[in-house]
């Protein structure tokens, strides 16, 4: 029971901090940030404890369930789950979030709405941890939506900027489209398996009889039920993780402050999609190792990786390049999941979280240092002014590109390529992934040359960022390097951790032919990418106004890439226009028909009230008045008898007595 309470505290503490911070005034900045960072620190420590628990020998899976709603015989249950996947993810999320919170203090110091920022950050952290530690698809969905809400609030943090407000709306609506699929999948899963708990001693929806039942039954177009459900859930994951075609919101989400980009759109929220697929992987693979669902995931992942990498080549905003890079890397992770390797995907996810957060925070540091300039064409030579930022950024870039041996990115990307190579269905995803890796190296090097090398082309006076911003950078850089150790196949620690069996150090794995060929290919790709980029961008000085060398090489292609393959314009012309037309139709309906009906109803009631008024005036009032007149006349008649003469009264008395006597006499005889 204590374990359950401990696990529950991990999302609850940031939630409490968010609640308390929402009540604070704008001026109580120090209190707000202290509260939030303290709550997050405690959560990190508890997550670390949970992680250590899962390091025990044997496979750890503890669940704590409780019933939320009962209706009739059915009930909805929520629960918490502690297993290697969740614990590792939770530790990563809490730790990276903590570093970013500390970084935000420096970054948002001059902002007026500092307190609100920390409140939303804490809310996001709580929701994300809820997604990670949940044992029930329903709780996951609830926290999923909360994550979406927090993302909306944070992207649109500077809501008075129209572009930021629009970007927030776009993010929310696009992910909502995906969430529709998620909801349908969840409903179908509940009806197919009778429970939404993942693991429930054999009765959960991811284990045993329920799973095999779903795999064997077929639904529409001959797909197994498990495949249909998996594809629907993948809609939600694709929306959240920015897979094609729901990727359009991620680059626009850069309108938010840089810590938001680092936390949400690099490390955690976009990883939630990958995490979800990893979590419900048994459903994906229920119909076989190469089920339709998994194939779809792999193809979409590979395509997204290549697509986004191509677009990133032609971007000029420092954060946008990183955003498309994130989309591309998420494609890699989805590809890894699609070819059946949950471990490779999770390793890449965790490594990516660290170095992408590092890169975003580094970019933030650069932006801060050149006073809010974001176009790379107006930067240059920053490494002289901001050395710490430069070194840490370089480490992150090398990890992302997959520079061999010392950087975690190399090992994780290599593992993915290895798995993709061994996929029995097709070799094309492998080829697409390799091309994407090459392009990754290319555009990152391009960015490095534009930003850090050459002469400074801007107008501000760049300066190094304060320690509160650079120290988290250094910590993340250290992790980017250190995580390479557990990721090598010589010591497949992640693999062993994920499955619960011990690992042994085996250097001979490094020289297996299998491994060497793919590793060699990776090294070749990276060298190619960096080399070509150096040739194009490194040798001649870059200018701010002249077109990109690639553009002068092949202008139409470059233009298409720069315009992001016109996907946004396509959506605008089709979906948005259709919805606008529908809106006009509904407005007409509302104005004419509904309002008309209301006016008619109002008219009826007005008529009734007028009739009532007439009735009142001529019937009630008249009757009342005339009866009052009659009463008055009667009264005046009666008052004539009140002569004031006693004897008159006495006479009446006497007559009355006589009458009484007569009555008594008549009654008794």
């Amino acid at each position, binding site marked *: 029971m204590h374990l359950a309470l401990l696990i529950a505290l991990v999302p609850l503490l940031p939630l409490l901090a968010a609640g308390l911070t929402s009540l604070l005034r704008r001026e109580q900045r120090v209190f707000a940030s202290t509260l939030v960072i303290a709550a997050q620190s405690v959560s990190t420590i508890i997550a670390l404890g949970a992680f250590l628990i899962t390091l025990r020998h044997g496979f750890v899976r503890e669940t704590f369930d409780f019933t939320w709603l009962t209706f009739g015989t059915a009930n909805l249950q929520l629960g918490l789950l502690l297993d290697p996947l969740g614990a590792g993810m939770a530790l990563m999320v809490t730790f990276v979030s903590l570093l970013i919170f500390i970084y935000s203090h420096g970054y948002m110091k001059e902002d007026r709405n500092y307190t609100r920022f920390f409140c939303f950050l804490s809310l996001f952290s709580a929701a994300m941890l809820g997604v990670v530690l949940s044992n029930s698809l329903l709780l996951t969905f609830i926290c999923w939506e909360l994550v979406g809400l927090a993302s909306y609030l944070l992207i649109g943090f500077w809501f008075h900027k129209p572009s930021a407000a629009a970007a927030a709306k776009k993010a929310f609506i696009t992910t909502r489209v995906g969430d529709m699929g998620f909801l349908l999948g969840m409903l179908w899963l509940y009806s197919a398996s009778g429970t939404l708990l993942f693991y429930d001693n054999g009765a959960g929806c991811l284990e045993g009889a329920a799973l095999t039942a779903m795999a064997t039954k077929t639904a529409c177009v001959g797909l197994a039920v498990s495949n249909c459900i998996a594809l629907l859930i993948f809609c939600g994951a694709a929306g959240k993780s920015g897979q094609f075609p729901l990727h359009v919101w991620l680059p626009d989400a850069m309108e938010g402050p840089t810590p938001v980009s680092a936390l949400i759109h690099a490390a955690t929220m976009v990883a939630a999609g990958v995490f979800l697929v990893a979590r419900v992987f048994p459903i994906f693979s229920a119909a076989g190792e190469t089920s339709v669902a998994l194939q779809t995931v792999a193809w979409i992942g590979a395509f997204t990786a290549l697509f986004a990498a191509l677009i990133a080549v032609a971007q000029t905003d420092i954060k946008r390049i990183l955003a498309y890079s994130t989309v591309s890397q998420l494609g890699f992770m989805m590809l890894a999941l699609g070819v059946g390797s949950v471990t490779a995907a999770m390793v890449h996810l965790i490594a990516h979280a660290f170095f992408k957060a590092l890169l975003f925070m580094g970019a933030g540091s650069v932006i801060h240092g050149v006073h809010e300039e974001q176009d790379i064409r107006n930067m240059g030579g920053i490494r002289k002014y901001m050395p710490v930022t430069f070194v840490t950024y370089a480490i992150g870039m090398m990890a992302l590109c997959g520079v061999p041996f010392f950087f975690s990115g190399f090992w994780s990307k290599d593992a993915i390529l290895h798995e993709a190579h061994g996929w029995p269905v097709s070799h094309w995803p492998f080829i697409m992934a390799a091309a994407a890796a090459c392009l990754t190296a290319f555009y990152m090097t391009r960015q490095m040359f534009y930003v850090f090398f050459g002469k400074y082309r801007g107008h501000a006076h760049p300066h190094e960022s304060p320690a509160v911003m650079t120290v988290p950078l250094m910590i993340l850089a250290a992790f980017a390097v250190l995580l390479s150790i557990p990721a090598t196949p010589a010591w497949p620690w992640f693999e062993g951790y994920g499955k619960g069996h011990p690992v042994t150090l085996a250097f001979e794995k490094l020289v297996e032919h299998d491994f060497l060929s793919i590793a060699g290919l990776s090294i070749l790709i990276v060298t190619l990418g960096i080399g070509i980029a150096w040739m194009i961008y490194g040798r001649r000085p870059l200018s701010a106004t002249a077109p990109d060398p690639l553009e002068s090489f092949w202008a139409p292609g470059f233009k298409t890439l720069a315009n992001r393959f016109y996907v946004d314009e396509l959506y605008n012309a089709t979906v948005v226009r259709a919805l606008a037309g529908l809106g006009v139709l509904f407005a007409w309906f509302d104005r004419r028909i509904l309002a008309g009906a209301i006016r008619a109803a109002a008219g009826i009631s007005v008529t009734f009230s007028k009739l009532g008024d007439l009735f009142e005036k001529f019937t009630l009032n008249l009757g009342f008045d005339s009866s009052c007149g009659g009463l008055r006349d009667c009264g005046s008649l009666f008052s004539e008898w009140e002569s004031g*003469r006693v004897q008159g009264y006495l*006479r009446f008395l*006497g*007559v009355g007595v006589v009458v009484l*006597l*007569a009555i008594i*006499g008549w009654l008794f*005889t």
Partner: protein
Amino acid sequence: MNEFLQRLNALSWDACSQWLVLIPSGVMLLAAAAAAALRNLIHAALCLTLSFIALGIVFIALGAEFVGLVQLLVYVGAVAMLIVFAILLTRPSDLAGAKSPFAGLGPVGGILTGAGLLVALLAFIFSSPVAKTALPPAPVAPVAKIGELLMGSYIVPLQVVGVLLTAALIGAAVLAMEDKQP
């Protein structure tokens, strides 16, 4: 006193006892009619006195000697005198009564009411079986016994009447006092 009353009692029932009741009754009725009808107030008051005396004699004849004497003492001695004094003090401008003695409403209604009531009462009286009882033997009503009862069973009514008389005395005195000049 007692002896006197006893002798009175014996006398009342010796001979022609009923005439001893009927003749004073007739006188009483005539005097009452006169009292009701006479125009002159003093005359009316005096006829009233005569009527009271006759009633007292009837009481004595019926055997309630104490009551009869009380009637004579109180009514004749006090009430009638009081009425005469009140007539004196209110000094109607026309003691002879130039105007009609009857009220503005006219005598007809009152006479009719009285007649009606009389008829109803007589109907009851002469149809009731209770009233047809025979004359019982002469009762004895010694004053001592009356005194005992007054001080015994009827002590509460006695006290109440005492309070009433006191209140009436004080009230009458207050009411009839001269208005104090402010």
